[in-house]
């Protein structure tokens, strides 16, 4: 015990001799011995020093031992301090002692036996030491408990804060999170989850049945399957599904489920989160649409170019190149105009200016342009550009723009139902009606009359060519009822080259792109067919399919913005076989007609010939 700190033993006696003898007896305990010659002195020591054991003589002059003990015991600090009386009086005072026996009290009779006194003091010293140790352990324990409590409180507060932040983040990100007790069957939803499903926390009971009912009918089974698999494998899962909010709005969701389990197959809890991905889905759909549209336009453009090349006639290669070059250029410039407007339309004036720009350089004032601003629909703009190009090219070759004194006046005005555009050449005395109504005028008539349902009136005078286009407004401009196409009998279609008395098999050709139509028409004629068409609009095609005598048909799937299927239906009903032509991918074909042969633009003549000749056309059931 040498390593342990010494404790204080207070000895109280009014006789110095006795104090000395106690000191001798207790000396070998190795503790600190403090001598007090009076009760007052003892009290003073007690107040200032830690005392382990007090040794008191019962008989002292001023304050006797009992009085001193009662004072000590009353003090809260010394209620348990060990007191040993040294008393000459024996039995009579034992009862007296008992009254104070709440603390450690003992007594030693005189004459003092050194071993007995030493042993008793030693017991109390040990008791004191152990009590101190216990107290210090307790204090340490309390400190640790306090520390743990504080740490727990801090981590609790942190948890709550993080939960609050998580909830905020989830809400901001259009997310919700949930917990599900697989036994009870009740969901615990956070705020975001209620918001996402569009239900009120106060009125909506989020149990399995109610939540299930909000899932889109077509996705319910898949959602259940995902949950079942998550529970079975314990690995969780993820899936996209739709929900229908009570207000009828459909939202796309990405759901993730996680499984908490104690042992394999023993699911304690399912939890997960839901993300609203409706915007993303819409974006994806838009992208797919856009990609298909771009694809379609590119293929159509190539098809137009292909037919331009095939239809161009020229004496020399140089002329041919020049002609093709000019026509492709005309298409390219209108394409630029359209793409600048994001395919909303093209300004007629801008289109005219662009087309006439190459001829303005020769001499200013040779060309005058006049007319109100008009925004042309994309398809009409292409047609216009080509028609104008032909007029300008002709003028440059044979007309007003081939001589310096010539003049071209181009003006248009909007009438009640029509757009009237007049191309007037003056000052060319030596201009004759071209002997060969080559591609130029053919294209102009086919475009303006065939595609736009207008009327072309060319007049030749001594002054030069005067050409008037009269075109229905509904074909070229965006009007409120633009989407509703009239299917009246007046909506006539041109059959430019249809023979009066068909000798071979009769093929119906429905194609809204005039040049492609012309090209396919020429191909079919080359193959030995008689051609009905090309017909450029659905009403015309329907009418022909219903009434004309036909042996087969070549149908553009998308006719002037409308799907050809009504025509296909009529033909099927009549047992007339047909093939489809499309600028789109195959998946855009209605599955009812999956068996129908499909040609892609630009059309390969051998393929078309092969389809029509190699095997007899059979009707689709």
């Amino acid at each position: 015990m040498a390593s342990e700190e010494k404790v204080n033993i207070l000895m109280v006696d009014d006789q110095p001799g006795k104090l000395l003898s106690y000191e001798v007896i207790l000396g070998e305990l190795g503790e600190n011995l403090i001598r007090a010659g009076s009760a007052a002195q003892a009290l003073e020591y007690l107040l200032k020093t830690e005392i382990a054991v007090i040794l008191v003589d019962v008989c002292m002059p001023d304050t006797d031992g009992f009085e001193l003990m009662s004072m000590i015991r009353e003090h809260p600090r010394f209620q348990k301090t060990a007191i040993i009386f040294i008393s000459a009086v024996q039995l009579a005072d034992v009862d007296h002692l008992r009254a104070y026996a709440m603390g450690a009290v003992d007594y030693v009779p005189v004459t003092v036996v050194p071993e007995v006194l030493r042993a008793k003091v030693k017991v109390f010293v040990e008791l004191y030491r152990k009590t101190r140790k216990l107290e210090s352990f307790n204090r340490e324990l309390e400190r640790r408990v306090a520390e743990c409590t504080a740490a727990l409180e801090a981590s609790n507060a942190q948890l709550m804060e993080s939960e609050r932040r998580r909830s905020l983040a989830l809400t901001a990100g259009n997310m919700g999170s949930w917990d599900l007790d697989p036994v009870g069957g009740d969901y615990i939803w956070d705020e975001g989850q209620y918001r996402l499903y569009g239900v009120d926390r106060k009125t909506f009971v989020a149990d399995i049945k109610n939540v299930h009912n909000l899932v889109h009918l077509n996705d319910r089974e898949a959602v259940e399957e995902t949950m079942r698999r998550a529970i079975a494998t314990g690995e969780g899962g993820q899936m996209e599904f739709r929900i229908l909010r009570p207000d009828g709005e459909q939202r796309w969701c990405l759901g993730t489920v996680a499984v908490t389990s104690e042992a394999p197959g023993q699911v304690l809890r399912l939890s997960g989160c839901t993300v609203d991905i409706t915007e993303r889905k819409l974006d994806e759909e838009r992208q797919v649409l856009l990609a298909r549209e771009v694809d379609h336009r590119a293929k159509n453009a190539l098809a137009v170019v292909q037919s331009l090349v095939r239809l161009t006639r020229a004496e020399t290669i140089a002329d041919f190149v020049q002609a093709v070059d000019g026509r492709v250029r005309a298409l390219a410039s209108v394409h630029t105009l359209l793409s600048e407007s994001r395919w909303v339309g093209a300004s007629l004036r801008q289109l005219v200016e662009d087309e006439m720009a190459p001829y303005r350089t020769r001499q200013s004032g040779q060309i005058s342009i006049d007319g109100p601003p008009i925004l042309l629909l994309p398809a009409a703009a292409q047609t216009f550009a080509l028609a104008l190009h032909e007029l300008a090219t002709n003028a440059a070759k044979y007309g007003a723009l081939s001589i310096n004194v010539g003049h071209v006046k181009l003006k248009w005005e909007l009438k009640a139902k029509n757009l009237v555009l007049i191309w007037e050449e003056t000052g060319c005395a030596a201009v004759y009606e071209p002997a060969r109504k080559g591609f130029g005028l053919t294209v102009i008539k086919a475009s303006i009359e065939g595609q736009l349902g207008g009327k072309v009136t060319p007049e030749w005078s001594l002054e030069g060519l005067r050409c008037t286009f009269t075109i229905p407004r509904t074909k070229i401009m965006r009007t409120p009822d633009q989407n509703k196409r009239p299917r009246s009998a007046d909506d006539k279609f041109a059959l430019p080259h249809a023979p009066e008395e068909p000798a071979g098999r009769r093929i119906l050709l429905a194609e809204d792109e005039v040049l492609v139509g012309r090209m396919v028409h020429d191909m079919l004629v080359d193959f030995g067919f008689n051609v009905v068409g090309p017909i450029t609009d659905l009403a015309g095609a329907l009418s022909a399919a219903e009434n004309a005598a036909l042996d087969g048909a070549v149908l553009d799937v998308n006719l002037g913005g409308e799907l050809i299927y009504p025509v296909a239906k009529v033909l099927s009903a009549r047992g007339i076989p047909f093939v489809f032509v499309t600028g789109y991918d195959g998946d855009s074909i209605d599955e009812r007609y999956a068996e129908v042969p499909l040609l892609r633009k630009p059309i390969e003549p051998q393929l078309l010939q092969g389809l029509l000749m190699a095997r007899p056309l059979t009707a689709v059931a």
Partner: protein
Amino acid sequence: MARSIVVKGVESPERLLDETALFLHHVVTDLPAEKQPMLERLHSSDEDLMNQTVLLVDDDARNIFALSSVLERRGMNVLTATTGREAISILEQSQNEVSLVLMDIMMPEMDGYETINVIRKNPAFRRLPILALTAKAMKGDREKCLEAGASDCLAKPVNTEQLLSALRMWLHR
């Protein structure tokens, strides 16, 4: 009687009643029945005393021991000094830790009056409550205490309840 009244801020009727009772040396049980709960409410809580530090100054260790016994039982911290000089040095080292001093007047060498005088000279202790304890029931004794700078004066032998009331009053925050 007017000469004995000390004017100070009274924060509540309870305190006023308490103070007058204390001043008039009334024992609480002698007060009218409806007044007693007022004081009991005031006294029932040791809130004002808990963890406050008192310096006891007395040359008799038995007095100090008995007083510290009473005060510690109510959760107070007790510092003790047996001479005036010791009291002054404890105060100067305690850095405003002491919130009240109980000062015995009759001490050898440097008596209570003188000690209070010295303490009051330090500006830091100008407002420190010092309660003088005096065994003299002589006329003019109280005035002498207050003159010396004591905040209040209690007669010896000290009645525990009176002492605690005085402490609560002076230590009330």
